[in-house]
């Protein structure tokens, strides 16, 4: 008898373990082994991965809006250029930048998908969806601060209601975000970050076109609020769907 035969005889003699029992044990303990990363720590960790350009663009938009409003305030009001016209110009300008900021943030949040490493991110100690949500949170904070600053600035200078000012900047931002999340699902969109320009252009055209004899910036607080709530609901649904997708992938 050769060594190989002896080895085979010994190995064949073992009845293999029950697959289901083994699998459930391994799955159960794989979860226990995974080190827990707290949400705060995860957000701080992801902050480090947000590229400088996101911060810089937020800062630039803020500076631009300050300069623009200062310039507007210097512009004399007359019968051809009333206070309402000034408010509208400021609101239009403020909302104009939002799709760009939003898309830039989304590129940052979805960079794992764009670089084709999302599957890798899914199997790290923190799940892919947690990493994505943390990045979205960081990007949201980075963008939210200048947006709020602009709203307050508009209130102090041209006298736009804070809620209205905030909604005028938030709605295009959220709409771009939702559309970016939608197109991110397509294979062709994931090939290049430039595909995120499509939602930007769509939202820009939509918010700066006259629809029914009215511009987006002219909408009242109630209408803006309804749109905003609807967008938040869609966004929540999108995030939930995204979260479920990872679970389906695992199963």
């Amino acid at each position, binding site marked *: 008898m050769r060594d190989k035969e*002896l*080895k085979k005889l010994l190995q064949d003699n073992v*009845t293999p373990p029950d697959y289901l029992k083994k699998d459930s044990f391994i799955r159960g303990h794989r979860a226990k082994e995974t080190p827990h990363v707290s949400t705060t720590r995860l957000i701080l960790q992801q902050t480090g991965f947000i590229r400088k350009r996101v911060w810089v663009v937020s800062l630039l938009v803020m500076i631009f809006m300050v300069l623009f409003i200062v310039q507007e305030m210097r512009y004399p009001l007359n019968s051809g250029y009333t206070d309402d016209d000034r408010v509208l110009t400021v609101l239009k300008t403020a909302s104009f930048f939002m799709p760009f900021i939003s898309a830039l943030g989304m590129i940052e949040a979805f960079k794992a998908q764009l670089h084709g490493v999302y599957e890798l991110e899914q199997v790290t100690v923190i799940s892919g969806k947690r990493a994505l949500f943390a990045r979205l949170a960081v990007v949201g904070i980075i963008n939210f601060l200048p947006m709020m600053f602009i709203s307050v600035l508009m209130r102090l200078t041209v006298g736009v209601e804070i809620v209205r000012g905030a909604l005028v900047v938030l709605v295009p931002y959220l709409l771009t975000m939702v559309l970016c999340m939608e197109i991110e699902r397509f294979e062709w969109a994931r090939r290049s970050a430039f595909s995120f320009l499509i939602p930007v252009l769509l939202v820009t055209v939509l918010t700066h076109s006259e629809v029914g004899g009215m511009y987006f910036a002219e909408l009242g607080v109630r209408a803006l609020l309804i749109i905003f709530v609807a967008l938040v609901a869609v966004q929540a649904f999108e995030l939930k769907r995204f979260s479920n997708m990872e679970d389906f992938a695992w199963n």
Partner: protein
Amino acid sequence: MDIEKYYDKIYRYCYYKVNSKPLAEDITQETFLRYIDSLQEAREPERYLYTIARNLCIDEYRKKKETELLDEGMIDGSDFENKALEKIRLEEAMKKLSDDESEIVQLRLLNEESYSEICKIMGISRFAAHRKLESAKKKLKRYLEKGEIV
């Protein structure tokens, strides 16, 4: 620690010691549970796992004197008799080996552990491990071929 990597090895190791599939499964899982509970992360998990498994098997021996039952995995199949005989012969042959020899056969032939790993697990030199393995193989082969033991 990657449980998946070691699960089958520990199971096979336990299987030869307790000669029962459900018991081997239970001991294997208990081994991992004890390892996870007692140690954060050992540099050489294999060594700890084998030690825990061995101790658990010894405990099991103490609990009940092993009655030689045929495993349920053998009950099915057309060549039942041949398999049963082969199994009995192999188990008999394994019983003829000393504890160290049986241990080394399980580690080297069954689980294909490297000599350096076996030396760490058993706390013996490479030369001693090789010698014991050769001796065990010789005994096993002789018993299985001729039904006699040296």
